[in-house]
């Protein structure tokens, strides 16, 4: 059901929505260094997430940089008879394909390779479009944001898999599995992009529609 909307945003009306309990309060800029607090739940009130663009940009760039070691360094090494065989994110998928484990290969390929790349591309696109005050398809861009925010966590499959393998395969000289630096970089990409998506404020997409005269 869609209730009747007023043709105006809360910010334009001088109202601010509490991010935690969703109560509307009258907005007044807090004194410098001070906070405006929600009268119901005590959370900090902001018209838009603070420093949304700067934070999201910084975290997205950091994720791009971390993405390189995450894919080039080994995520784990299988040591068997004193001989080590390093695995990267990509070679892990290749092993699954070679073993004929198609559904699993697809799952890992999607979670570990497609999702991180799409997430970085989507975040960059959203940030550029907001910076350029784009008025193009705001609803679709909001949906893109929601997807970006929701799928990020699924990339952690590989990291959890490594924690299980490392604890299980402890056969001394026969075989052991050691975690690699790539796994740490990969986990960092996931965590940093999650923070980037959280810092981004989707209302900025719609703010570009606010002043039809100025462009």
């Amino acid at each position, binding site marked *: 059901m*869609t209730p009747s*909307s007023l043709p105006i945003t809360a910010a334009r009306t001088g109202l601010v929505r509490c991010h935690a309990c969703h109560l509307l309060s*009258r907005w007044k800029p807090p004194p410098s260094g001070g906070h405006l607090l929600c009268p119901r*739940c005590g959370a900090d009130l902001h018209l838009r997430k603070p420093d949304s663009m700067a934070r999201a940009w910084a975290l997205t760039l950091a994720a791009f940089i971390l993405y390189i070691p995450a894919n080039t360094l080994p995520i784990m090494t299988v040591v068997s008879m004193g001989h080590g065989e390093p695995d990267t994110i990509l070679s892990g998928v290749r092993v699954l394909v070679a073993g004929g484990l198609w559904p699993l290969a697809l799952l890992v390929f999607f979670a570990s390779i497609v999702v991180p790349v799409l997430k970085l591309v989507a975040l960059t696109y959203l940030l550029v479009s907001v910076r350029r005050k784009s008025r193009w398809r705001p609803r679709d861009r909001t949906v893109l944001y929601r997807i970006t925010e929701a799928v990020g966590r699924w990339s*952690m499959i*590989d990291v959890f898999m490594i924690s299980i393998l490392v604890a299980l395969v402890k056969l001394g000289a026969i075989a052991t599995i050691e975690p690699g630096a790539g796994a740490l970089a990969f986990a960092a990409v996931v965590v940093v992009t999650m923070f980037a998506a959280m810092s981004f404020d*989707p209302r900025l997409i*719609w703010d570009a529609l606010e002043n039809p005269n100025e462009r």
Partner: protein
Amino acid sequence: MMNANSPAFPPAAADALVACHDCDLLYRKRPLREGEKARCGRCGALLYARKSNSIERALTLALAALILFGLANAFPLLDFQFQGRGQQSSVLSGVWELYAQGMWALAAVVFVASILAPLLKILALLYVLLPLRVGRRPWRMAWVFRWIETLHPWAMTEVYLLGVLVAFVKLSDIATIVPGVALYSFAALIVAMAATDAALEPEAIWERLETRR
């Protein structure tokens, strides 16, 4: 640090209006029937929903989740057997082994996502819901309830289970892998946590807090 309370917006008006989370458009609230959801016509975001027996159902499910969480962590996930040698692994032993091999940061990420965040989320829910069920308001309820939303994205129980399944399939070629009690508990825990989230109606809980005007 200076604090200022926002000038109270007339209560009747504040309760009558709602702003969209994703596009900030204002709406006049309309009462919903049970099970109904109100969505933003401009961007499609959920504005508010009404659920039946929200507190009671969420409380029951959260209690079930706590028990399942205990089982999922007390028992082994997988049992690995290779040429007469065996090794079991639990959620905690996975974390411990990463730490023991010098990857403390990775161990911390796995610990938070698989143990700490889900546990804190369940405990925080019980802390808020149990007293509300008997008509009392828990101490610092707003602060605790805000934390539940913060913890939500970091509790990755369902992703963790997929990680375990990938490990299971990868190893079952070369060794005998027996799923443990914790694996089934984990699957049930995911269902219980998702059902708790679905039963919970945050608006109904926030409305229990009277506004300081």
